[in-house]
């Protein structure tokens, strides 16, 4: 419901949840979804993103992932930073439990 509406401009990342465990994943290439945002493919080109989105829909049909969508990121400082609090929390884990989620696995 609160998924961001597609922004027309700026770098974007394609994300989804994995069917089997619901884990947050990010698109890297046609065969790979990765767990960490830092390993994700950043799309600066709308056509490439559209192609990846079509491919992701095929993977939904193949029952690997759920609900793929793209969101805006910021690349300042050479790091991929999510453009919203929601994506920030998905990428790291609950802001109130720093011992849980991807932020804990990374530590």
């Amino acid at each position, binding site marked *: *419901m*609160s998924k*961001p509406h597609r922004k027309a401009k700026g770098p974007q990342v394609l994300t989804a*949840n994995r*069917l*089997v*465990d*619901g*884990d*947050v994943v990010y698109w890297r290439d046609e065969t790979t979804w990765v767990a960490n945002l830092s390993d994700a493919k950043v799309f600066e080109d709308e056509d490439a993103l559209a192609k990846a989105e079509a491919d992701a829909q095929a993977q*939904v049909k*193949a*029952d690997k992932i*759920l*609900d793929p969508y793209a969101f805006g990121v910021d690349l300042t400082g050479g790091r991929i930073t999510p*453009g*919203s*609090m*929601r994506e920030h*929390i*998905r990428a790291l*884990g*609950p*802001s*109130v*439990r720093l011992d*849980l*989620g991807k932020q804990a696995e990374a530590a």
Partner: protein
Amino acid sequence: MYRYDEFDQSLVDARVTEFRGQVARRLAGDITEDEFKPLRLMNGLYLQLHAYMLRVAIPYGTFNSRQMHMLAEIARKYDKGYGHFTTRQNIQYNWLKLDDVPDLLADLASVEMHAIQTSGNCIRNTTSDQYAGAAADEIEDPRPTCEIIRQWSTFHPEFSFLPRKFKIAVTGAPKDRAAVQIHDIGIQIVENNKGEVGYSIFVGGGLGRTPMVGKHIRAFLPRQDLLAYLEAIMRVYNMLGRRDNIYKARIKILVHEASAAEFTRLVEEEFEKIDQTKLMALPEEELDRIAAYFAAPEFETLGPCPAEHLEALDRDRDFALWVKANVVPHKVPGYAIANISLKPIGGVPGDITSDQMDGVAELAKDYSFDEIRATHEQNLVLPHVRERDLYAIWQRLKALELATANIGLVSDIIACPGLDYCNLANARSIPVAQLISERFAELDRQHDIGELKIKISGCINACGHHHVGHIGILGVDRKGEEYYQITLGGSADENTRLGDITGPSFPYDKVVDAVETLVTTYVDLRQSGETFLQTYARVGLAPFKENLYAAA
């Protein structure tokens, strides 16, 4: 409390088998997500931000130590060692894998528990007064009625694909602790002038996008007509409730658009027709059978309050404050109702670790006739403890870090999971609750402020009941930033009232100051003995609003 017989157990077991098959078909690709989603939702399984979340029903909030131990074990085995009690007397697990869920449900079934109909457009877990069977002001224990509704609503063939979700709450006391007027159906047990016990019925209450207080449609419904009348309401709703717009699909919209009088007429007409078949009349022996499970435990005849208890109150100020805030009179002399706050200062409202769950289970077994209650305010209750045991209980709670003395006070905050966990949320709820409770941490100040219910939701769906908070806080998204709208004067008791919006919303880092301003305004304005709500009722929104926006 109720115990499953062979039929109840066989149905819950069959549901586990059914869901195991559905998960297998899903993982094998035999059914699509669109087909699977309603099936998993009917079993309480959501996909949230980080993983699957399962909502387990605690029917009418009553459970025992064996069940609590299993809830603890499930958190260790399949999750990350904790669970979250919700505003609907459920417990949620946040970090599940889809293929573990059938085993988890089998473990639950082994202790007569389930996640059936904790989501989806069906009749949800029936909620009730957490003090049922213990409260001094009760006309009748509401739990037999709740259990009858639980059984009737479980796998109801006609009402499993309703326009929208459907929530029923029952209270047996005039003091409403079950918030019945904000439910799709609210049932209050009443006595008529002939001394017969029956039901007073409210319909069409609810929060969410279009909050409404329930309409009173029946002053006295004879007991044996309960299911016929519920079927009549459900059938009118199922046939006429709006399905064209998800935001207008709840029964409250139908009642509102048709008018309460017309809706009542439709229900009474349908009830007449159903009643003629006598199909739904409740057999007396079944009422008796179920009621027998809720017979009062064997209370001892206790004398006046023992000296050692009074001494402990004198000696230990922390204990005395806990008793003052958390302990409530019991209907039986010498006994008390002990609330366990799941709102430690700076903690996550409603969260509890597996070790704490085990500790509460042991306390229930040792001191409370093996009974525990979950409250819609996200706390727990030991409903039947001896006053003389309170000190020992409190010491053990302290060791478990569960002795926070704040029930009904400013730091006893309801908060939904919000954007930290929830796929629907627009803003975080939990950290706002944490910041407020830290600001008001000092217990003497909390007691001075007195009863004050703060309720926080992270989106318009209002799982945190913000509309009926004395102070309500609603998280909204403003261009990617978290903002919070404040309402005042809401209440969810027998005088249910929706709060008034104060004005423009506040950014995340200004919410606590805003709450402080409201509290200070109340303290300045209150007359002797007045609660926040009473002061608000007397002076209205204006002085609060003035102070709140004066600085801006």
